[in-house]
């Protein structure tokens, strides 16, 4: 869908007499006002949206009636689209603040849940002074995709994504946002992506949970920047345990000097081995090492930590103890 400015420009290039659109108070919405020309040649043709928003087509001289009707239709549809977008942003802001009554909630669901479900994407940066520019970049990146509404807040940007989008698509969008912001604004960001929801009733809760994903990701995986709620379930559980209790559990169950002084190579081997579902073949390939070298390293880990990572139980113990350690730190 074309923006109203683009549409006006295009119509003007075909019908030069058509100059633009003004609102009920005479403010220019799109086009030019030709202030230097005598006003008596100006023609105004009213158009209404949602029965209450009145705009005028502003022309220099009369235009054929049929042409005006066609113009009204095209511009009406473009203005309606803009108006809906504005409403969506306002409604999402109200939902974020939990300031919406039941009747409005029903209307909001009609407007925002036409595709039955939605996902939230929360973008957070450290440099507050770049928030406005970030908003510009994100808005332009999503413009006209037909499924996203970008909402700026004082802490970051929320994107309301209508309908079902696959994890790959969301990840690809997240990467694209990050790379674009990195290269345009020279700042880094973290992105949290929520689960899929189908109701707006608990929107504030969903919003806060999406914000929390970024916090969780930062604690457990600071080297990464895009986090999915569905990947951080265990981390969320561990993070919710009070700090003192976490420390107690860690010391009682898992504490060994080795956990604090674990060699880099060993740690990477374990991490890649667990990420590759304990597959010797895939891990050796991912680490660019021979399978025998991997076997040697796993034996060494077994000797030092007392955990045979080839068994699911021991791998789970290591994973939890390692996450607890990160969480405690």
């Amino acid at each position, binding site marked *: 869908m074309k*923006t109203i400015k*683009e549409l006006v420009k295009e119509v003007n290039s075909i019908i030069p007499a058509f100059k633009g659109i003004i609102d009920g108070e005479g403010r220019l919405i799109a086009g030019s006002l030709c202030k230097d020309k005598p006003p008596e040649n100006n023609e105004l043709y009213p158009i209404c949206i949602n029965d209450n928003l009145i705009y005028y087509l502003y022309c220099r001289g009369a235009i054929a009636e049929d042409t005006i009707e066609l113009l009204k239709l095209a511009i009406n549809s473009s203005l309606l689209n803009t108006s809906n977008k504005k409403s969506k942003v306002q409604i999402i802001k109200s939902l974020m603040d939990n300031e919406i009554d039941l009747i409005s909630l029903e209307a909001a669901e009609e407007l925002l849940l036409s595709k039955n479900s939605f996902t939230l994407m929360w973008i957070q940066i450290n440099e507050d002074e770049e928030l406005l*520019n970030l908003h*510009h*970049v994100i808005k*332009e*990146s999503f*413009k*006209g*995709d037909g499924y996203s509404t970008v909402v700026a807040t004082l802490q970051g940007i929320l994107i309301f994504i209508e309908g079902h989008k696959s994890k790959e698509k969301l990840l*690809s969008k997240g*990467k*694209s*946002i*990050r*790379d*674009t912001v*990195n*290269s*345009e*604004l*020279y*700042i*880094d960001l973290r992105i949290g992506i929520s689960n899929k929801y189908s109701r707006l009733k608990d929107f504030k809760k969903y919003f806060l949970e999406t914000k929390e994903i970024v916090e969780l990701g930062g*604690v*457990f995986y*600071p*080297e990464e920047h895009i986090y999915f709620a569905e990947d951080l379930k265990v981390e969320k559980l561990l993070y919710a345990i009070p700090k003192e209790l976490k420390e107690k559990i860690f010391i009682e169950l898992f504490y060994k000097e080795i956990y604090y002084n*674990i060699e*880099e*190579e060993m*740690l*990477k081997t374990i991490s*890649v081995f667990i990420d590759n579902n304990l597959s010797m073949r895939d891990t050796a390939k*991912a680490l*660019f090492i021979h399978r025998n070298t991997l076997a040697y390293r796993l034996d060494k880990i077994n000797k030092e930590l007392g955990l045979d990572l080839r068994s699911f139980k021991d791998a789970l113990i290591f994973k939890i103890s390692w996450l607890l*350690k*990160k969480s405690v*730190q």
Partner: protein
Amino acid sequence: MASLTLKNIKKVYSGNVTAVQDFNLEIEDKEFIVLVGPSGCGKSTTLRMIAGLEEITEGELYIEELLVNDVAPKDRDIAMVFQNYALYPHMTVYDNMAFGLKLRKTPKTEINRRVREAAKILDIEELLDRKPKALSGGQRQRVALGRAIVREPKVFLMDEPLSNLDAKLRVLMRTEIAKLHHKLQTTFIYVTHDQTEAMTMGDRIVVMKDGVIHQVDTPLNLYNYPANVFVAGFIGSPQMNFIDGRIEKEADSLYFAFKDNRIKLSGEKAKILQSKAYENKEVIMGIRPEDIHNEKAIIEKHIDCTVEGKIEVSELMGAEVYLYLKVGDQSVTARVGANTKAQPDSIVRLALDPEKIHIFDKESELAIF
């Protein structure tokens, strides 16, 4: 234009995850340097530290002799092009290139000058009024490069910018970027996991693994004189063959022996091994597929350097054939002429070029030669 110095750079994330360590590198002004290595080797982290997008945990980074560890990314005079670039769908090519400058409140006349100059360099002047959807993949990639060029930076940082393109376009854009470097005469730092990209584009290549530099050299030197088994295996396609074996002495000669095979080593190479006391020691022998020959004349010439193998698969590549063989219990790949008559399941004799043999220490995996 700028030179860069990275001194003892280290990156450690919380939780003691070391991404990069002991990174020392001098990058010359106008140099095209490529950081290459497998996924997770720290190449992107290094590039992001240069950009200022990642904090440097330890070490010093100088751009033109100025310590920039604490200089904000936007003040480092760099421009970046990343893998997942996205053009703004509703903006024209002109506006896509101008957008970053507009955000930085650059005067309109200056924006206009820079966009038109960049468009001229990239040969996309006639596309300035088009929207991204009306562009081909290659044209979009050029616009993405244009967004970086309009910054007029001292250093270009590129992180896998061609990875999302199809194979044909990737080859084309490789040449375009090399040409661009030539035109701009600016320092380029380029990250890729693709060794072919690295070999064809870089003045020098930095090979990384596990956050550590394994070798820095020109493409040709890396290929001919790899510092260790990892570099030897990573650079070159099909990759170098590695065979575990032992150095044995008979009469005055040294041999590389494995299973029932013995390869006589040339006098010069034997001398090096003797001087380093490798007699009767386990080593790894490396030989590139193109240094294994099946022509009768070469076999006769190097009769002491031949092995017998059973062909498992034969792949015709057009101008050449890749033979995948079993020599004893070792898998070996040979790259021979397309006129070979060798068929799968047949036994063939092959000669190893004695001058092209590499020997690596079994434990450290470092190259002896």
